[in-house]
């Protein structure tokens, strides 16, 4: 019984150490655990596949900061690779100040793989503008009201890709990569008011709250956390669009092992709690 009491008083730093090893070891000795693609992730992939090459663009909103980058960066990379390798046009913008930096970092990381891709022809980076709701509504009227120039100060009218793009009618799909509730602003204004198609790439923390929007059809699909990113990486690899290093997929072994360790700790913690509780009860009964 003293064992369970010791477990109850265990220094939590042992748990930190255990989790660190559970994440570290699968990186050094990969297990290659199977990864299944779920329907919400496949729906995002299919929605982008259905966009005509060199036609209406995909709009990616990078509404996240470095704190959620490990989950959302792989999604951005995978989508940029998907679009640029298949000549699908991309517009990037941010409604979150730090999101502009994330989008630029994403472009800097991916563009060396596509030396032929040109700014203003294959992709346009619009940068950041403050006023979240107002910007989402402006995009429904005229993109130029919200972004008169791209992120580098070039007027949109002088960019070949933007010549026939005025508002949501000319944008095939929006993908919001968000580490906050900004996705709901897109749902409220772009989807409910303008009837635009929206897919979401969200952090695992917020994924649970967004499932109802999949049921209603307000999202055409959803990528949830690192697992969602890994599923998307698998889909573009299967199609042969890229052979680049799969950042999210590499981490899935560590994710699975860490989850098993946490499950084990939850079970041990509960057993220790009830065992020490019944032991105390027995002692108090014997004492009286």
């Amino acid at each position: 019984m003293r064992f369970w009491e010791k477990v109850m008083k265990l220094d939590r730093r042992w748990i930190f150490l255990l989790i660190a090893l559970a994440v570290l070891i699968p990186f050094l000795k990969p297990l290659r655990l199977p990864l299944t693609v779920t329907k919400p992730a496949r729906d995002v992939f299919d929605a982008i596949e259905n966009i005509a090459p060199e036609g209406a663009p995909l709009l990616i909103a990078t509404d996240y900061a470095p704190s959620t980058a490990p989950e959302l960066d792989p999604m951005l990379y995978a989508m940029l690779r998907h679009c640029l390798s298949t000549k699908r046009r991309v517009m990037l913008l941010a409604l979150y100040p730090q999101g502009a930096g994330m989008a630029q970092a994403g472009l800097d990381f991916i563009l060396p793989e596509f030396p032929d891709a040109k700014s203003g022809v294959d992709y346009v980076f619009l940068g950041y503008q403050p006023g979240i709701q107002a910007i989402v509504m402006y995009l429904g009227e005229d993109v130029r009201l919200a972004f008169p120039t791209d992120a580098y100060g070039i007027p949109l009218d002088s960019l070949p890709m933007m010549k026939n793009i005025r508002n949501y009618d000319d944008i095939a799909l929006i993908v919001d990569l968000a580490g906050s509730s900004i996705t709901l602003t897109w749902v409220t204004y772009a989807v409910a008011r303008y009837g635009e198609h929206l897919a979401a790439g969200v952090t695992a923390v917020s994924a649970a709250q967004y499932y109802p929007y999949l049921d209603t059809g307000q999202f055409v699909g959803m990528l949830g956390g690192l697992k969602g990113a890994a599923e998307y990486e698998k889909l573009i690899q299967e199609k042969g669009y890229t052979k680049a290093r799969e950042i999210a997929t590499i981490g899935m072994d560590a994710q699975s092992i860490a989850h098993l360790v946490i499950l084990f700790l939850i079970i041990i913690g509960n057993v220790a709690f009830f065992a020490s509780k019944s032991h105390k009860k027995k002692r108090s009964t014997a004492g009286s």
Partner: protein
Amino acid sequence: MKERKGLIFGSVILIVVFIIMFIKGEPSKNIMVWIAAILTLSIYSFLYKDNVFYKFAEHLFVGVSVGYSVSVVWQNAFIRRVFDPLFITRTYIVDGKFSLYLFLAIVIPTLLGMLMVSIFTKKHGWLIRIPIAFVVGSYAGMGIAPSFQAYIFEQTQSTLYVTLSISSFIMIVGVITTLVYFFFSKEHKGFLGKTAGVGIWFIMVAFGASFGYTVMARISLLIGRMNFLLHDWLGVIK
């Protein structure tokens, strides 16, 4: 004391593992990667004990985040929306003629925005009510109708669309019993109490799912950093 010794031993083992990987791997030659790696390790050192490295990295993070956001907003909001149109591109001059409408379209929002700063003075602090009233009024006007559409009509319609399936049955029972749990005008006794009790189970399942996803998210962040340390910094994994 014995346990503390064990912890120190465990931490030393972890540090030794990193040193071995440093020797066997191909460490980055990029100074920025080194700075990022040192800051990452400084932040994680808090897991053992609060210390000066953690405090330095934390304060640096807060300062850089705020500084970066302020500069981005300054450049994209003030310079692009106010300074440039007023003094550089002069968008209020159309075909050589001064347009009062376009001029006021820049000046009035700027003045309203500047009133936000009035909160810092006791004498003129009340002026902040004007821009706040404008923001609340305009955003409420813009948001009420589409919010009803997005969050109430669409969700209700989807819930009412019942099919002959187990998932549809579970959803209907879940929605009704959870709503009953949040009905406080009658004491939760008898049939009402039992129905509310079922509602609590559904709420607990929702909390469990949410917690599971939260654990996944936190582990993902650790995986992201571990990937950076092992691949970008130490070069021990391809």
